């Protein structure tokens, strides 16, 4: 299978040039490592994965949420994407029109839990009726993250 670089991937998933820039920013911030914090700069990065669908159906794809947040400035970027392949056999094939870039608008931290609020500025990344405002929670003590996919709560595992 053709190897994809990051720019090609972001183009494939159809999230536009703004998202490409966001992806580049995330990559440059060392996003692809595990959850990490840098107190000197006040940044916090994470990457979390879970299988979709969950529950009684066999997982077919992987939902990847990865972010880079400036705790002090309460800003940052979170990317959410669905890749073909269940966790453990995930491919680099991002399913088109299922990727979203979230601009972080607020961050709150308490007892190891980071609550992130953001907004999806590109309306083309939203389904009809989908709320542009996004909530995420990263629980470092439990090694999990939480968000919604198509309005359904999804718990993801932080990658270390």
């Amino acid at each position, binding site marked *: *299978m053709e190897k994809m670089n990051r720019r090609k991937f972001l183009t494939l998933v159809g999230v536009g040039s703004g998202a490409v820039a966001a992806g580049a920013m995330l990559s440059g911030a060392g996003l692809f490592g595990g959850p990490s914090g840098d107190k000197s700069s006040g940044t916090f990065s994470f990457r979390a994965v879970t299988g979709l669908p*969950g529950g009684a159906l066999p997982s077919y794809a992987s939902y990847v949420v990865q972010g880079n947040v400036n705790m002090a400035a309460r800003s940052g970027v979170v990317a959410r994407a669905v890749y073909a392949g269940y966790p453990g056999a995930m491919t680099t094939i991002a399913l088109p029109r*299922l990727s979203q870039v979230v601009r972080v608008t607020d961050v709150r931290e308490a007892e190891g839990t980071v609550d992130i609020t953001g907004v999806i500025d590109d309306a083309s990344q939203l*389904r009809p009726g989908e709320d542009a405002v996004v909530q995420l929670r990263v629980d470092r003590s439990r090694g999990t993250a939480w968000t919604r996919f198509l309005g*359904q709560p999804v718990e993801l595992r932080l990658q270390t």
Partner: protein
Amino acid sequence: MADHLDEPGLSPPGGDPSIDITDVYAFKKSGQDKSILVMAVNPLTLSPTFNHRALYQLAIDTNGDARADIAFNITFSKPSSAQRVKVRRARGDDARENEPEGRTVISGPTDTVVTRGRYKLFAGRRSDPFFFDLAWFLAGLPLPHPTGVDFFALANVDAIVLEVPNSALGTNPDVRIWGRTLLPEDDDDDEDDDDDGDEDDHDDDFVQIERMGRPAINTVFMSGARKREFNRSSPHNDPAEFTADVVGVLTTLGGALGGTSHTAAAAAGLAGILLPDTLTYNYSSGGGFLNGRRLDDDVIDIELGIVTNGARTTDGVGVHGDLLAAFPFLGPPH
């Protein structure tokens, strides 16, 4: 998905979307003693062309034992110049070989409708006729159903469309059909000294990479490594090898979705219908799925009701508007 990207991380000699079967269709040509057979590959057109090293096969079982008695073996030339396609028809033991056996029935350039005798052929890029709200499935089929969004509305595939006289499917009108893709066991593109790019240049020893009959069988019922095992196996072994997987989903899914799951006995009965994974098709009938599969059959709605025991009955999306009334029937690519 129907069968799109059903084996994540295909390892060599796979790892190639051009041999990833997305759908198989079989339906009667209206008013004629002919059938249309379709095998679509290359989900989301991640690959530029058909794989000239691969063997694409439409297998036909004429006696109900889920073993091929007739096979249409389809091969392609190198895509360096205009790619050509050749279809051979094999019978009996030859149909069960992992080789491009058989007598050539039609050949020609890709992306062109070719006619030879009572056969007609098109192989090339088309609009993906499959329709499904994939995101809703990935979200776990929640209710109330959000506004349906067809994930495949703008997707393309590479399709092999073959019009055949029904007599080419055998004398018994009740047949089983499935698609297979195979690659040379030693898939080294540079080692064939005789490879001059013709569609006749193919190594003899092929291994099966992928197979599909009805839509979503692998996607819905097989977990993890079982997906690959399913793709590598043969329909006649399905009842023995995969019934437990199917029963496992059928006895849990309806309840997990807030409805009532199938009983073990009912699930076993349904598994006996869903397996072997072949399209059952009576070529004298114009009826659709589960008699063959027409391009506009809402197979997801049909299967949802069956699999969830009525807990879900529709994904809220319908047939594409770009289907053609005439051969090759699939709409032009986007």
